[in-house]
């Protein structure tokens, strides 16, 4: 993640340590006492331990350690009882990668990643531009647009499943609009249509998050630039293209990062809406594959190996994205400790 930070942090550290009279007094004290390593004295180090210790302990215990355990379990044939003993090396991985259903799930994840960016990005940008204008009723409109994002996947999934079922509300609305042919489509069950239905729901659900991020980014753009633009006689659209969009680019790139990761980990909505039939309707994901072929089939080693593959895929995508896209944001929130 933070490829630049190790070289930058010490420089900043020196600058900080040299500032203010209190620092130099503290340094003088620490020079006599403990050897000065971080430049903040023993007292500073105790403070660092007290402040960051609890977060580190919780994080390592419940995030890092289980991930490492998953990698370990992935090498066993294991039903989840007792200690895993049946070591089978990379067999789980061979089976997973050879399973057409897993490859299909991987392809579905890739589809979600690409489509999320292509569909949600422009729509969210448009909405954010719209909501960034000063107009009456703006805060109400904002709150209403964020409603789908706030609701849990369970609620959303339950609702959409009922709306989209054959001869359900969606079909009735299409019929009322005179689109009889569309009304008879099997929105949830057809392998060709269901992936697009899924994209429609995902866009509906997560567009609010993109809009929130973009709005926040737009608020960080100095007002003076628009005033200068107005003085030069630039039109509204001209200003959006020449000021807003370029300055919003770092925010868009961070959104892209979060969207890619989120798309690769997609689970709740699919599990609620399609359940075990997901793999027959073209909407299974690596995560649903992991749960159904792993835990629900009592094949814990297999499930953990799937989790590891899911992690490797996510990690690779994140690193590539960071290397080729986020790198431009020298000061981006995700690029490192600075």
């Amino acid at each position, binding site marked *: *993640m933070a490829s630049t930070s190790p070289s930058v*942090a*010490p420089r900043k*550290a020196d600058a900080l340590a040299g500032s*203010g009279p209190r620092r130099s007094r503290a340094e003088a004290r620490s020079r006599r006492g403990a050897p000065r390593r*971080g430049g903040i004295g023993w007292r*500073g180090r105790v403070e660092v331990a*007290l402040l*960051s210790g*609890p977060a580190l302990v*919780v*994080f390592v215990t*419940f*995030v890092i350690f*289980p991930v490492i*355990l*998953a990698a370990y379990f992935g090498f066993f044939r294991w039903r989840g009882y007792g200690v895993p003993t049946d070591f089978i090396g990379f067999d789980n991985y061979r089976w997973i990668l050879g399973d057409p259903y897993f490859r299909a799930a991987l392809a579905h994840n890739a589809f979600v990643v690409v489509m999320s960016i292509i569909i949600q990005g422009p729509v969210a940008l448009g*909405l954010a531009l*719209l909501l960034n204008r*000063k*107009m*009456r009723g703006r*805060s109400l409109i904002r*709150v*209403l647009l964020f*409603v789908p994002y706030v*609701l*849990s*996947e*369970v*609620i959303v999934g*339950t*609702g959409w499943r*009922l709306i989209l079922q054959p001869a*359900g509300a*969606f079909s009735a609305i299409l019929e009322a609009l005179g689109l009889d042919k569309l009304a008879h489509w099997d929105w949830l069950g057809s392998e060709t249509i269901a992936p697009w239905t899924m994209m429609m729901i995902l866009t*509906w659900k997560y*567009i609010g998050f993109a809009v929130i991020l973009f709005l*926040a*980014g737009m*608020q*960080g753009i*100095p*007002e003076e630039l628009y005033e200068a633009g107005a003085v030069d006689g630039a039109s509204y659209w001209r200003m959006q293209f020449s000021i807003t969009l370029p300055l919003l680019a*770092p*925010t868009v790139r961070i959104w892209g990062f979060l969207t890619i*990761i989120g798309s690769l980990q997609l*689970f709740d909505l699919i*599990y609620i809406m399609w359940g075990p039939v997901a793999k027959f309707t073209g909407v299974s994901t690596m*995560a649903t594959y*992991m749960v159904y072929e792993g*835990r629900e089939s009592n094949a814990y080693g297999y499930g953990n190996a799937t*989790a590891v593959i*899911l*992690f490797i895929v996510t*990690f690779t995508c994140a690193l590539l994205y960071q290397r080729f896209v986020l790198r431009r944001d020298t000061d981006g*929130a*995700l690029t490192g*400790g*600075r």
Partner: protein
Amino acid sequence: MAGKNVTYHTVSGRVRRGSKTQWGSPAVYFCALLAVAVCIGPVLFIILGGLRSNSEFTTSPAALPKAWKWSQYVEVVNSSDFWGQFSNSAICAVFTTTGVVALGVMASYVLARYPVKGRGAMYALFAAGLMFPLTVAITPLYLMIQAMGLLGTKAGVILPQIAFQLPITIVILVPFLRAIPRELEEAAAIDGSSRLGFFWRMVLPLSVPGLVTVAILAFVASWNSYMLPLFILSDTANYTLPLGVAAFATEHSVDTAKVLAFTSISMIPALVFFSIFERRIVGGLTGAVKG
């Protein structure tokens, strides 16, 4: 309080809202209303569906309620299941939020303000957590929670939730804390304040907007979380609302209207909570996405 707000605005370099708000053009309103309709249409279907009778769903799937059966809502509100799940969700969300904010702001303060070695590596560790989905860790996590004797307890849900919410919290808070001017720290030092004193008396009050943002994100994430409680909580008495909704939907799969009534009521808390704080979220993220 007013003084603090003023400082915040200079910190984030932004004063928003003109003195008078105008009406936008009709085209703008048309687009906005269209978007709003798409966004809340399905939600309205759920809410109104809870007022219909089951036969209406087959005869006219997309119509307004004819029966207006408020009794279905009353039934949900009077059921002990709902309130049990509601309080389970509330307890999990409150403890998760408190834990994340407390641990997150302390660690972020170190990452933003202490010139220690290994700070970059520590930030990288937390930020890498964004790529460690709960999905990957869920099975080992389940076994760990079992070994700790926390299976089926709220603590077994709360602790991992805190851990998995820490990365995004820290990624948002670090730039926020870093934006507090160094002059303030120097002034505090001259007045004899230690780093911890500065943290307690200046950093915490100044970072309230950022804290509110991460608190809301943590609260909503916990309120809506499904996968972790699904694995950890097996006893229906301990179910949180999302599990309750899923179970109710399976149990009463023929009684569509009742399912929708239950679903509608369960979405109210998150909606209310979010509408109150919506503006704060955008304000708090401003510091973060600017970097």
